[in-house]
């Protein structure tokens, strides 16, 4: 009986009298992974591919992913393109302004390591993981929308295994 009382906050009464019992983590992770609102924010040519993925042909809406034009309402940040040294503090600030839980996808070779700008350049950050933690890396120059969706599904798998304690 004590156990049932303890379990009450995580037991929900369904219309019709049934009762659903699950672990809180499973519900939270399920909700999080299916409503990854991403930040409307692009850096370079990868952003064009990200826009194509968000538009009707590849349709990120079917994953519950809607873009948000403010970091306060975003769960996910695509770092889509070359990170210049002048842009680096702005990206860091945008990441800091996002509310927890927050995820980052490094999209394309530039965001992973500097890509074609690794050599002989004075202005490019060699990988966005030098600035902010990255969850999923998607190589490509730029990655096709299928690759981006594959990376998103990997992120969803990662989120679905999260534990809150």
């Amino acid at each position, binding site marked *: 009986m004590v156990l049932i009382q303890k379990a009450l906050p995580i037991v929900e009464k369904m219309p019709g009298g049934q009762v659903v019992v699950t672990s809180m983590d499973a519900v939270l992770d399920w909700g999080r992974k299916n409503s990854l609102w991403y930040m409307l924010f692009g850096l370079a040519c990868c952003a064009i591919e990200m826009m194509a993925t968000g538009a009707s042909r590849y349709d990120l809406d079917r994953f519950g992913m809607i873009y948000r034009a403010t970091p306060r309402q975003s769960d996910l940040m695509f770092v889509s393109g070359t990170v210049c*040294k*002048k842009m680096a503090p702005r990206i860091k600030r945008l990441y800091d302004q996002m509310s927890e839980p927050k995820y980052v996808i490094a999209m394309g070779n530039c965001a992973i390591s500097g890509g074609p700008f*690794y*050599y*002989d*350049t*004075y*202005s490019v950050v*060699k990988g966005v993981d030098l600035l902010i933690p990255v969850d999923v890396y998607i190589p490509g120059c730029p990655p096709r929308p299928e690759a981006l969706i594959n990376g998103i599904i990997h992120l969803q798998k990662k989120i679905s295994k999260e534990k809150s304690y």
Partner: protein
Amino acid sequence: MENIKLKEQLLAKFENIKIDAIEISNQLIIIVSKENLFGVCRALKENAAFEFDYLSFVTAVDRPNNIEVVYELISTKKNHRVRVKVNLTKESPEIDSVTGLWAGANWHERETYDLFGVNFINHPNLTRILTPDDFEGFPFRKDYKNPEIVRMPND
């Protein structure tokens, strides 16, 4: 106006200050000393025969012995163009700003300052534009050194 005709008129107009005019690949280039640049630009803009009302770009070239500042002028009314070049010393590249004539020169001159280190006198806001504010050195100079740059192997 045809290049040849324009060249004759320019040489006649600036006879007393001795400018050089050459034509390379159908492009007319005049070479001006840095003291005369602002006066020449003002004449090119305001003289009814030239009417260069549009400054297409300002940039610089790092030559072995000097720094060359380049202005491309276009007349949208007369449909002709001219390129103005000025040679500056590497030690102190300083030149008058032309923002007073063409407001669009503002960011071009900031970019030239940012990348080549050319100081534009009387510029309203001569600060870095492309690189971060705390950037050191002028990256488009041939002698620019930065230990953080990774060189391409076998290059």
